């Protein structure tokens, strides 16, 4: 049984064997992975020790105190939050050995080739085709969209249609796609902020060996659900200090710029400050539930709350800035490696937050999920359930 004391001992040993001051960043991260201290709840040999997930905090605190480098989790969020748990659950031993370590150390960045121009909320309707060549490699053709990090990614998790003659959920297969392969073309997708944080990805005759398939042929939807559920956990489980989110910048502006204050804005600001604090407490409560091993359904709602709050608060700040609110910092197209909701100025925050109710599941879809899975209300009548994908209206 791996307990707190044992993890502290192992962490101290890692630090003794690889002093952060004299060890290269990547070498330290590799050593940490090999010591099972990367994600302690993962199996031994794969960066973990099979310990309770809640004990990761023990390791993180010790390493932070020792000034050890971290693996820049924000830069590799898709790999950590989505690809890794899916590979762990459905991958072959070879795949786990090959992918998890460079994923965790950040040597290899991952992106997610799920959404398509014609399949957003109705993700299972996707049309990217993967056709097997005489029982050998798969040949993939199609287009993906909203792909964060595709311009820096080495690997992608990909879902594609392998059987158009069965209903949409049954004909999908899950692959690990090499982004450097011929036929993979990444084009920046410029957004309303002026930035190109996302990409379009065109797949033209991309050859994927069958050893890069994750899960059974035709079982890709079930595999994808693991990815999607982890995506929501990743979005909902963050820990924030008071004023740690979008309310922070506007509260600071309010305090520093008394000349901007009006009574109307004051009332709206206070209402949103309280709601942001309450949402923060809800997130903290969810975290405490997870840590004590009694996960609640609150996670499903957290993203809804943050999306609405981010939009309302950033909208308020543009208004608060008055004359300045008519300006924008810079429309030059940039290609950031990181998603940053609260960076730059108020106008940017306002525009970027519009994506919060779309990315990672639209608010409308999440409300349906809450209504059906949490409250147990009847599902929408489905007219596409028993229809072959090729016969669906498009």
């Amino acid at each position, binding site marked *: 049984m791996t307990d707190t004391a044992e993890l502290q001992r192992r962490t101290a040993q890692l630090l003794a064997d690889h002093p952060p001051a004299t060890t290269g960043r990547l070498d330290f991260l590799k050593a940490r992975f090999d010591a099972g201290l990367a994600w302690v709840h993962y199996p031994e040999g794969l960066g973990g020790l099979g310990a309770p997930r809640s004990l990761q905090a023990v390791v993180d605190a010790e390493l932070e105190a020792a000034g050890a480098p971290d693996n820049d989790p924000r830069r590799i969020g898709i790999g950590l939050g989505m690809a890794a748990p899916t590979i762990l659950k459905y991958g072959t031993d070879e795949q786990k050995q090959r992918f998890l370590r460079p994923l965790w150390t950040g040597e290899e960045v991952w992106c997610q080739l799920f959404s398509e121009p014609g399949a957003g909320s109705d993700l299972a309707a996707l049309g990217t085709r993967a056709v097997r060549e005489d029982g050998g490699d798969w040949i993939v053709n199609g287009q993906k969209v909203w792909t964060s990090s595709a311009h820096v990614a080495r690997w992608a998790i990909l879902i594609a249609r392998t059987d158009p003659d069965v209903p949409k959920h049954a004909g999908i297969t899950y692959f690990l796609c090499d982004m450097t392969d011929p036929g993979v073309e990444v084009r920046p997708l410029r957004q309303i902020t002026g930035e190109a944080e996302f990409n379009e990805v065109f797949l033209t005759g991309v050859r994927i060996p069958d050893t890069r398939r994750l899960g059974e042929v035709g079982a890709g939807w079930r595999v994808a659900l693991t990815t999607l559920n982890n995506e929501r956990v990743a979005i909902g489980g963050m820990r924030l200090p008071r004023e740690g989110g979008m309310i922070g910048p506007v509260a600071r502006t*309010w305090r520093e710029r008394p000349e901007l204050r009006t*009574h109307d804005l004051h009332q709206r600001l206070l209402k949103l400050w*309280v709601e942001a604090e309450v949402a923060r*407490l*809800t997130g903290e*409560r969810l975290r405490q539930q997870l840590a004590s091993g009694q996960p609640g359904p*609150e996670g499903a709602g957290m993203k809804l709350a943050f999306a609405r709050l981010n939009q309302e608060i950033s909208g308020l700040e543009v208004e608060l800035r008055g004359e300045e609110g008519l300006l924008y910092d810079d429309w030059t197209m940039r290609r950031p490696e990181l998603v940053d909701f609260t960076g730059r100025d108020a106008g940017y925050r306002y525009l970027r937050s519009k994506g919060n109710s779309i990315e990672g599941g639209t608010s409308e879809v999440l409300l349906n999920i809450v209504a059906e899975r*949490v409250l147990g*209300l009847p599902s929408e009548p489905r007219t596409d359930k028993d229809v072959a994908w090729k016969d669906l209206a498009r």
Partner: protein
Amino acid sequence: MTDLLYSEEEEALRSAVRDLLTDRLDPAGVIARTESDAPHDVALWKTLTGDMGLAGLLIPEELDGQGATHREAAVVLEELGRAVAPVPYLTSAVVATEALLACGADDLLARLASATTVAALAVGLHTAPGADFPAVRLENGLLSGELTGIADAVAADLLLVPADDGGLYAVDASAVTVTPQVSFDLTRPLATVTLAGAPAGVRLGDAGPAVRRALRAGAGLLASEQLGLAEWALTETVRYLKERKQFNRSVGGFQALKHRLAQLWLEVVNLRAAARAAADALANGEDADLATAVAQAYAAGVAVRAAEEALQLHAGLGMTWEHPVHLCLKRAKADSIAYGTAGAHRAAVAELVDLRAP
């Protein structure tokens, strides 16, 4: 660190209270009682306080209390809120008790703990923590004046009365005239308390700090009552909409209604975190002013909306006197004023976190 979960003991307490309320309190009985001369359920109160000892949760064990904390009292209030129970728990076992704790009135606390006495703080229910409150005249050891909007005064044996010398006095209910007012919330009735030369007796202590502490605890734990109300409204509405058929479908399957209920669920989840934070802060004395103000700035909106949504989605049935949703709505709306409106608490937040008005 703030503990926002429920302990096993707290869950056990919840089960005990819920079982009792399920057995002893049916909505038809509550409605009938509101139309009688005795709106409070005295028998239920006796069980809660005598057999279960719940009146003494906040009172130290050496004074015959339970020596528990606001966290446990909050759980009791969630259940009482869910049932819209007509008992003077919040007013006597929380608000009056806190005033007596502030004054160190040990003998009276022992009487409250053993449930031989029900007390009411003679300050209008609408008063926010830190707000001004009326006091009666003190002359030659006698108290004279009229105080209005005193919640649960009709059930009280003992009134805690602020006087114009700045003191708080314990006055026997038999020495004053308590006149019921027609109250919007029938289950937490208000009354006018008239003192015509009532003997002041012992000065318990300074009224200012005692009343502030009492009202803060009342406001903070009211959020748990509001949580219970809102949860009941949501649960009942979901249940009803699954059963109710229209247009050859279960009404709960229509997306417009599903989204409204999902939104409401989200607000209830948020309210739970806010209410737990307030109860925990009151128990530990850390950050209690802000946690209470945040909870009260948020809670009223959710509880009222939950009750209003429940009424609308029960449609014609919700508009009737027989269906208990009106008890819930009346309590939720009255609660939105009790111990300070959301606006008053937002103003408190503005001061506490330095977000000043223009």
